[in-house]
């Protein structure tokens, strides 16, 4: 009963394409998706998910659940990096600890998308406003990470010109992927509000094409993830364990918060997945610029090489089982 959802998940096209991407690296195939094609799919997915989310939010309106859920989402993205930081400090310096912790406090949009596809495959409902939670959880962890560096390591730094509050806010809120997701969300909202006929004209692009483009992108992500693995070895076993147990730990907190918020099973899974996923777009970009002392291979290899595949292949069905166990079915 616990293997079944995992197998079902693994046999869905997005996960299968992810796996063949990864396998191509182990077999040293020369399959390659050259730059900037992955960027095209990455931009497309952010635009489409934001746009559709905006429409859904406008349609469903701000129900009772929306504000508490969004608030809890932001809270989680503030707390998780603090916990992560404390754990990582056992082994790493302030810079690396803060950078890695920030990545785990933030989110991965593609993991979120995969969870949505999983729910659709199981015919479980979820709400559009969860995309709002996705968008709101990208940035706060970056701010926490940078503040941790600012206050925990004030004297070590030869050159802290980039650490003014304004540049911290800039890096966290105006990062390309944050900006595209948020502004597509707003456009979706405005369109549903003032121009509903345009929704059906966008639908073939943002809706129908989405699942296939997701598969194509996951094929690339499989390649990328598998290419990160060797550098994980250098990172040491502490970090490898962290990359698997931190998402599990975060999912546990997440599922109890979801229960407290009385979220339905679909929304609950998405909430848990947001807590459990880690960022490889916005956070690395911000950390590379503002905390160059941190080794980028640490925060990239763990998030992309281990946490992402773990979540895509095993995590999502595990979290679903967790949700089903811990959250009582809603009355009705």
């Amino acid at each position, binding site marked *: 009963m616990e293997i079944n959802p995992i197998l079902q998940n693994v046999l869905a096209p997005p996960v299968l394409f992810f796996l063949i991407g990864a396998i191509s690296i182990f077999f040293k195939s020369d399959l390659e998706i050259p*730059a*900037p094609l*992955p960027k095209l799919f990455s931009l497309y997915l952010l635009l489409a998910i934001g746009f559709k989310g905006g429409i859904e939010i406008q349609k469903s309106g701000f129900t009772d659940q929306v504000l508490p859920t969004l608030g809890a989402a932001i809270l989680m993205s503030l707390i998780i990096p603090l916990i992560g930081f404390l754990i990582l400090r056992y082994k790493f310096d302030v810079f690396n600890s803060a950078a890695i912790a920030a990545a785990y406090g933030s989110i991965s949009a593609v993991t979120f998308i995969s969870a949505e596809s999983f729910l659709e495959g199981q015919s479980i409902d979820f709400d559009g406003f969860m995309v709002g939670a996705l968008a709101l959880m990208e940035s706060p962890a970056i701010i926490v990470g940078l503040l941790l560096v600012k206050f925990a390591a004030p004297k070590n730094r*030869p050159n802290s010109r980039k650490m003014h509050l304004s540049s911290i806010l800039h890096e966290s809120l105006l990062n390309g992927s944050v900006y595209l997701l948020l502004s597509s969300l707003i456009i979706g909202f405005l369109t549903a509000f003032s121009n509903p006929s345009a929704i059906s004209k966008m639908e073939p692009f943002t809706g129908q094409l989405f699942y296939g483009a997701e598969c194509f992108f996951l094929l*690339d992500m499989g390649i*990328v993830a598998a290419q990160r693995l060797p550098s994980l070895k250098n990172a040491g076993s502490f970090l490898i364990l962290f990359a698997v147990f931190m998402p599990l730990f975060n999912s546990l907190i997440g599922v109890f918060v979801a229960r407290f918020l009385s979220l339905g099973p679909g929304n609950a899974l998405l909430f848990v997945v947001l807590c459990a996923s880690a960022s490889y777009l916005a956070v690395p*970009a911000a950390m590379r610029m503002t905390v160059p002392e941190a080794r980028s291979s640490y925060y990239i290899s763990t998030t*992309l090489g281990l946490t992402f595949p773990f979540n895509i292949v095993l995590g999502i069905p595990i979290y679903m089982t967790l949700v089903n166990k811990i959250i009582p079915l809603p009355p009705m």
Partner: protein
Amino acid sequence: MKRLDLIFSERELDAIINTLEKANVPGYTVMKHATGRGPERVVTEDMEFTGLGSNAHVIVFCEQELIDQMRANIKSDLSYYGGVAYISEATPL
């Protein structure tokens, strides 16, 4: 004339170009999407779509004085963020 080759993360491109413009170099050329390995980092093509991006290779043909003028700024950028800078001889055609 000298040729200055700068290779560094494209995320620092604006800062470096600022330095070049402030020194009033006669021109510069930028080639993005470079990958490679340095003492500190490996940069691969498959990571280009992530927040890390790839490297930029900047070539500047200019007089030695200009290079001397920019040296401190460039060195500070590169030492903080990583990257390499080399000078060689070049003669205009």
